[in-house]
């Protein structure tokens, strides 16, 4: 497939990346594929800049708050509320730093690739515990592994306190586990509730790996949930679990609680797992990572995200092959995506999500959001509340979900507000249009920009143009 080199540079920056900053399309011209491949690296994604606490520290903070709550309440309602607000608000600078990274990075393919995996392994703010762990989850479990083996990424996600809490794994207890055998009224360290929770097991199979309809059964889900019992988080109140029920691990980090683990072999997807302890579910994760169903599921999702809501089968097959031939190496899959001719079709079919639209708008004018209390509510209003995807499936991928009439009107409204502030200080709108869209800028839009009554109007037209709304 021969591609107009002008288009190639625009596509590299807007479809693979997060939108062009001034000068970026020029930088990609000539060797667009090389420009993208240079962003793949063993050390994984960039980290948002700032001093952020670890997930473990956040977890300990919340647990200690919960433990102290009654005492604090005796001193009045306000300290409690203040503590809750403080804990929750700690997620805001983290989200802002992530948006600033996206707005300013020179390696925006790397960041788009990363955001894809953050959404694939969704953790959202469903309660106080998880609200403070979404950021650390992305930094600690996702970013380091996005160009490594999928198996490592899956393991890091599954072991992170954010995921263990979001999908209710931390308190899942084998019905025949040691602690259930021993439990009785007044027994020290006895869990309040005892039993299996199959939420994480199901979503790993359905969303993270094999995909729905790939042939696993309810029995596989339940058996996998049994294998996962004991995968939990070390509490700061570790002392209460002293003696024979102690488990290794620093407070707020992953721990394997032998005492919670369902003993015995498990039978999952036609295979027996006789391993003991943490190795049992580990072996399951290893096997399902290598499954062709997983390769197909991931390839389809990647192709859908980067290229088209209804992705070309040839592209899916290409990515699937790269995954299976490399033993699930994500750098190889990224490379195959860049090499795939289907990814370079000039037609823009992907409609930007609200986050992508806002970030690419900032990129177009060479700016970045500076204030969470302004940026966050705008995203919420556009339907994409910060760090709070509506379900474990993550944010919607298809144009129809985001291009609702209300959303278009809201985008228009935001564009006008943004342009009124930005236009006076960022240069000629037609120059911004050429810098941010390159060959994708259509003659009618260029004409409308040149005929605009004011710079803010011109910039609004650019941001709301069909080609800027898509990638």
């Amino acid at each position, binding site marked *: 497939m021969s591609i107009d080199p002008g288009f190639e540079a625009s596509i590299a920056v807007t479809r693979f990346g997060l939108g062009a900053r001034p000068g970026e399309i020029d930088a990609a011209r000539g060797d667009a594929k090389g420009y993208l491949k240079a962003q793949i690296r063993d050390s994984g994604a960039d980290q948002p800049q700032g001093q952020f606490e670890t997930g473990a520290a956040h977890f300990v903070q919340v647990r200690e708050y919960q433990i102290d709550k009654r005492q604090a309440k005796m001193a009045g309602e306000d300290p409690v509320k203040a503590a809750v607000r403080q804990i929750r608000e700690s997620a805001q600078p983290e989200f802002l730093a992530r948006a600033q990274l996206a707005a300013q990075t020179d390696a925006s393919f790397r960041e788009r690739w990363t955001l894809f995996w953050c959404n694939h392994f969704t953790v959202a703010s469903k309660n106080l515990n998880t609200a403070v762990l979404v950021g650390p989850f992305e930094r600690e479990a996702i970013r380091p592994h996005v160009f490594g083996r999928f198996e490592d990424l899956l393991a890091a996600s599954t072991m992170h306190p954010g995921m263990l809490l979001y999908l*209710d794994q931390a308190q899942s207890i084998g019905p025949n586990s040691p602690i259930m055998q021993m439990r009785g009224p007044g027994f020290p360290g006895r869990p309040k509730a*005892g039993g299996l929770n199959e939420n994480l097991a199901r979503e790993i199979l359905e969303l993270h790996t094999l995909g729905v309809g790939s042939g696993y059964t309810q029995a596989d889900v339940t058996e996998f949930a049994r294998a996962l019992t004991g995968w939990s988080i070390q509490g700061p109140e570790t002392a209460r679990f002293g003696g024979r029920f102690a488990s290794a691990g620093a407070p707020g980090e992953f721990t394997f609680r032998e005492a919670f683990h369902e003993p015995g072999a498990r039978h999952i997807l036609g295979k027996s797992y006789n391993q003991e302890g943490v190795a049992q579910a580990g072996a399951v994760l290893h096997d399902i990572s290598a499954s062709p169903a997983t390769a197909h599921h991931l390839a389809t999702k990647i192709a859908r995200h980067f290229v088209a809501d209804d992705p070309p089968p040839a592209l899916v097959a290409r990515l699937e092959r790269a995954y299976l031939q490399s033993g699930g190496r994500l750098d190889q899959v990224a490379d195959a995506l860049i090499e795939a001719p289907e990814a370079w079709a000039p037609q823009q079919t992907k409609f930007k999500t609200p986050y992508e639209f806002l970030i690419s708008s*900032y990129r177009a004018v060479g700016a970045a959001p500076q204030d969470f209390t302004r*940026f966050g509510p705008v995203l919420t*209003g556009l339907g994409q509340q910060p760090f709070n995807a509506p379900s474990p499936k993550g944010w919607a991928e298809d144009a129809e979900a985001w*291009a609702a009439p209300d959303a278009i009107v809201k985008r228009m409204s935001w564009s006008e507000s943004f342009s009124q*502030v930005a236009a006076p200080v960022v240069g000629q709108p037609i120059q911004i249009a050429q810098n941010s869209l390159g060959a994708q800028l259509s003659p009618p839009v260029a004409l409308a920009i040149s005929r605009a009554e004011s710079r803010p109007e011109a910039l609004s037209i650019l941001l709301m143009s069909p080609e800027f709304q898509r990638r």
Partner: protein
Amino acid sequence: MTRPLDLTRRSALTAAAGIGVSVTFLGRQAFAEVGGSLAKRKLVVIVCRGAMDGLSVSPPVGDSNYHALRGEIAIAGFDQPGGALKLDDTFGLHPKLATVHALAMKGQARIAPAVATPDRARSHFEAQDVLESGSSVVYGASSGWLNRAMEAMGPRKIEAISVGAQAPLILRGKIQAASWSPGGYKDRDSRLPAILADLYAHDPLLGPALATGLDTEAMAKLATASEATITPASMVTPAPVAGQAPVDSMAMMQPQATEPAGRAYAQAGRAGAQAARTLGTTLAGFMMQPNGPQVAAISIDGFDTHANQGAAEGQLANRLAYLDAVVDGLSSGLGPEWRNTVVVAATEFGRTAHINGTKGTDHGTASTALVLGGGLKSGGIIGDWPTLQQARLFENRDTAPTLDMRGLFKGVLAEQMGVSRRALDTTVFPDSANVAPATAIIA
């Protein structure tokens, strides 16, 4: 190169803040002067996402196995504190569903306690697809059954509306969907809408969306003018949801803290219920207009209660309070038109009959659907009750389905909106001739 710029501190970005309740219209055809009484008929579908627990919505406290299966998350018996609100000897309603119960006492609410879609995979996303697409198989249709039902009503030219943060599948399809939310388009002197309409003229996605969006904005002014309390500010509830500043009312419809901070939690619940009621009255305001929509859909998230589900109070109770508040807002807002209205609330599947190890319930099969309206036929439960005897549980774990969800929807569409059996069997619910419509629901 980089010139960080504080674009936001200075100006009017608040325009888009605090919104998120969106109202989506279908179609913009003129309201037809045909169809006689049918021209006034209204239908609202509430999609309760996350698998709503039917055994808590309409707890069968008279079923001898109920309390043993449910343990501490069971709803107490009829005459106990926090107990079920009595419907008959077997069933009650959750104590938070007081409005629904009051309607039931007037013959304006009925339950279908063991209804399920044809999907059995216990996957939220697959089952929601089947629930909304109306297909018998997952991803069998890319449009929603409510949209195709509109098509089937063809010459009557009827309008529809949906409420939710995103365009829901149930109303997607050939008829263009529109949407609205409070705090909408401010700058009415702007040339931008006209310029964009021109640039979008040949854009099949953005063109119709913008046109409908602007129309809806205009209608919203009228719809909200009559309700003084509906302002963008009143839709903003400073509740502790995600660690973000202003939280919109749809965010209140997402899962709440399983960590109830006492009074703060109850306050968040009340604020959420108030926002939900406002949503109901707003929607009623739209539907009451001369050219207003006759068909609407609403989404409420957050019913996936794997842990700490609660009973008379708690996580699920708060969601049900929101559902009840939406119904309250709708039924009171519609006033005299309530007698021409039917509301159906349904979920993708139910939850396990047995409490799980983390004081919640896992993915199950049949659940409860609610049918409400001023013109219902009186009668008992819709469908049969399979009971909770161990031997009767589906796959030894779930309430067994006795009624196909499509049959319930078909019955409502036929009796309320006059959709023909032929259309119901073929286009609205493809290949479903073997699924009989439920009957004798609407007078």
